[in-house]
């Protein structure tokens, strides 16, 4: 019933619009063609100019009200470089955007059709063409240079004292693996992958024995952090929005990104005036139906807090693998003992008879 009424209402609106349009057309053919064209050009270019004004107000207005939301405070060293580059680009492109759009809307009004008017035959002018080829080329070259300079700095080798950790994505979650006290992640081998060992970690290797997994990503402020990124099944993307950091996680192709976080979670809570604020890790490459739901909390802490947190973590090997390796030996001994007892009892009984 509701559907029927809505459909009827929409159809009615369209019918009214079409009837009005037909009536207007009937009236317009009575006028002399040039007269009609002059009148419609005047009214439509007026509305067009007004539209331009409205759109400008909309853009300026929303930019003003949303200002604190876009360009959130960058939480990393290179994030500040990106923000500066954005501002320079915004100024150049913003000026061009405003001037050219303004000229468009203005010219349409100013040079609207007059039936006794005459256009100015101006087919070309090489000086003008040169000017507006060379000037944009120079501006863009500057932007390219600024961009490439920072690009190579961001993708330089991580400092040797960087904290290394590994993020492996899967549908629809993350393995966050830390190297433990030896600061070396245990080697992985695809041939070892199975449902008990999805990462294919080689547990026989010494460096694996102190690695641990974490639900949260915890990192110390002002220290370089190198994230080794990978995926088990499809392409994902390791994305830390406030840190201006993202890198695709590709099965079979290890990737990485290093950065220096500059603002602790506590400090960012003050800046945003939000005691509930937390940095978040998200996935940023479509990876299936759960793509939007791969969240982990990220905490940036002081160096002392980080050391404390590290000391509290138990290695994955201790908790999960070692126990299993020792249990069969214990069980076997118990079984032998039990079997011996049974055998002894049997022989005792046999002797008794």
């Amino acid at each position: 019933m509701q559907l029927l009424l809505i459909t009827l209402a929409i159809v009615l609106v369209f019918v009214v619009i079409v009837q009005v349009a037909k009536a207007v057309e009937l009236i317009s053919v009575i006028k002399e063609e040039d007269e009609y064209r002059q009148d419609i050009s005047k009214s439509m270019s007026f509305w067009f100019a007004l539209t331009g004004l409205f759109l400008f107000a909309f853009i300026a207005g929303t930019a003003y009200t949303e200002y604190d939301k876009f360009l959130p405070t960058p939480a990393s060293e290179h994030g500040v470089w990106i923000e500066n580059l954005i501002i320079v680009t915004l100024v150049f492109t913003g000026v061009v955007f405003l001037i050219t759009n303004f000229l468009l809307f203005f010219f349409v009004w100013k040079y609207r059709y007059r039936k006794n008017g005459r256009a100015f035959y101006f087919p070309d002018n090489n000086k003008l063409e040169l000017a507006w080829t060379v000037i944009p080329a120079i501006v863009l070259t500057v932007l390219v240079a600024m961009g490439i300079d920072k690009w190579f700095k961001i993708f330089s080798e991580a400092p040797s004292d960087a904290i290394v950790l590994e993020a492996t994505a899967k549908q629809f979650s993350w393995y966050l693996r830390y190297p433990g006290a030896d600061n070396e992640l245990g080697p992985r081998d695809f041939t070892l992958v199975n449902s008990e060992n999805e990462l294919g970690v080689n547990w026989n290797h010494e460096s694996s024995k102190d690695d641990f997994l974490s639900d949260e990503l915890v990192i110390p402020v002002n220290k370089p952090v190198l994230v080794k990124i990978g995926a088990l099944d499809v392409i994902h993307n390791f994305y830390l929005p406030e840190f201006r950091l993202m890198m695709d996680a590709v099965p079979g192709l290890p990737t990485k990104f290093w950065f220096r976080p500059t603002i602790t979670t506590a400090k960012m809570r003050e800046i945003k005036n939000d005691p509930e604020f937390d940095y978040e890790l998200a996935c940023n490459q479509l990876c299936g139906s759960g793509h939007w739901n791969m969240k982990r909390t990220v905490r940036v802490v002081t160096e002392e807090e980080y050391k404390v947190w590290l000391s509290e973590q138990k290695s994955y090997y201790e908790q999960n693998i070692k126990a299993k390796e020792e249990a069969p030996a214990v069980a076997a001994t118990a079984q032998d003992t039990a079997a011996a007892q049974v055998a002894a009892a049997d022989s005792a009984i046999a002797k008794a008879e």
Partner: protein
Amino acid sequence: MATTAIHEHGASHTAHAGGHHHEETFFSKYVFSMDHKMIAKQFLITGMAWAIIGGLFSVLFRVQLAWPDETFPLLETLFSNWFDGGKLTTESYYALVTMHGTIMVFFVLTAGLSGTFANLLIPYQIGSRDMASPLMNALSFWLFILSSLIMLASVFLPTGMASGGWTIYPPLSALPQASAGSGMGMTLWLISMALFIASQLLGGVNYISTVLNLRTKGMTLFRMPLTVWALFFTAVIGLLSFPVLLSAAVLLIFDRHLHTSFFLSDIYVGGQALDYSGGSALLFQHLFWFLGHPEVYIVILPAMGMVSEILAVNSRKPIFGYKAMIFSILGIAVLGFLVWAHHMFMSGMNPFLGSVFILFTLLIAVPSAVKVFNWLTTIWRGNIRITPATIFALGFVSLFISGGVTGIWLGNATIDIQVHDTYFVVAHFHIIMGIAAFFGMFAGVYHWFPKMYGRFMNETLAYLHFFITFIGSYLIFWPMHYLGLSGVPRRYYSFNEFKAFAEYGDMNILITVSAVVVFFAQFIFLINFFWSMKKGRVVTVQNPWKANTLEWTTPLERIHGNWPGELPVVHRWAYDYSKFEDGPDFIPQTVPMTEQEIQMEKNAKH
């Protein structure tokens, strides 16, 4: 290469000579036509049908984004396959997003835009009877229909349409275990696209041969209207780049069905370690984007060509900088092949490669800027007649500026680290491709409708269509820049899981409401189009827009072979509007140059 035109008598083998009628059945006239004008309309109507479907899909997923906690029993009744408990399922959301992109980019803006206007305008504007091979032209359309039917069939699959994004990156698109849509939905997508590519190649070869070989006497290359230049370069780009997408699709089919490892390596999915090894997921991306980037120029160039034409005719002034416009199209075409990996800045490819693509990508802004400045100079000091075509052409220029400048942000890879795969990208490509290219298409339809159907479209409905769509589109896509800059990722079913992304609720509602309004406003255009076809105001003069180009010298009643009797002879370029202070404000291409004009040419300093 022939720069002089071939004489009429060579061309008469390709099509019926003008003026002679023969018995036509319904099927030979409307269905299996080999006439370029009818084939153009076939592409147009099919494109319009796909546009409604693609637009409807976007309304459905936008509703989910604006009201993620609401249920919609009404929508569930209509689209029961995709809804569960009154909400879109996550799998269907991604399927709708994927198909929206595929439909709009390929079926509407490639086939519907260049298929329509290349077919309509190339033979008309160069003075030829029909395309070089009318049979191949018809084949191109019928392959497109076959491709469309297969893609349409995938909409009704129980396992769902393809759902890995229109970019269909493997491994997601290669493994049905990773996503239901990667089963039969993806198989049909690949078959459909293979046929689509064949259709495009046949069309492109035809357009190129026709432009190079069938120009009428006096129609040198540098007297061709800009529309033809744009369509010509579009066809060349398509011919060079579509085969690479085909190769990517074929290799993906092999990985999916023959267990090869072109794109797959070290995969553990659904509790199983799979035995693919040695492949590179990045290889697919390179192959895909090698087409993918030129594809966006294939979409925009025809629109640019038509806008140049329409602005010149309606400003009663030459297009400013005709040669510069041609060379900027050439520049865009060439550079367009050198920028593909700007879609891959964060893919894990070698950063050095990234730096090379920053350079070329920002360079391509130069010819694009030249075009904008030339359009502005064209209307400067013109006598601007507003017609529906004019106002859409002007809207195109505004949208091209707005969408184009954010390309400079994205092309600078350092900034892309922040905005890659966020709503900033969605805003950019929708404004410059989704909306601007559509406006070019609308301008073309409104302008050449009198030629196609001998009637005018209703102007009141047209202006209403324009203002609602123009304002509405800005309202939809402008706020997405803010979302993207603050980090909101694209292709998210819901933003509510993340505190950082959840605060955009109001903006999402504004976007969705605008999208629904704009979607319904397109029906104003559709009603106008179909009603005017039969009942529109009749065109009584041969050249209602008082334009210079050759299509307006054909008779009102359209005939096979376009001109009765001899083909027109061309004596001048297409842009002599308001050349002299007195006299008519236009001089068609067929009018011979006067002595005075020849002298002026000799003395002219440019």
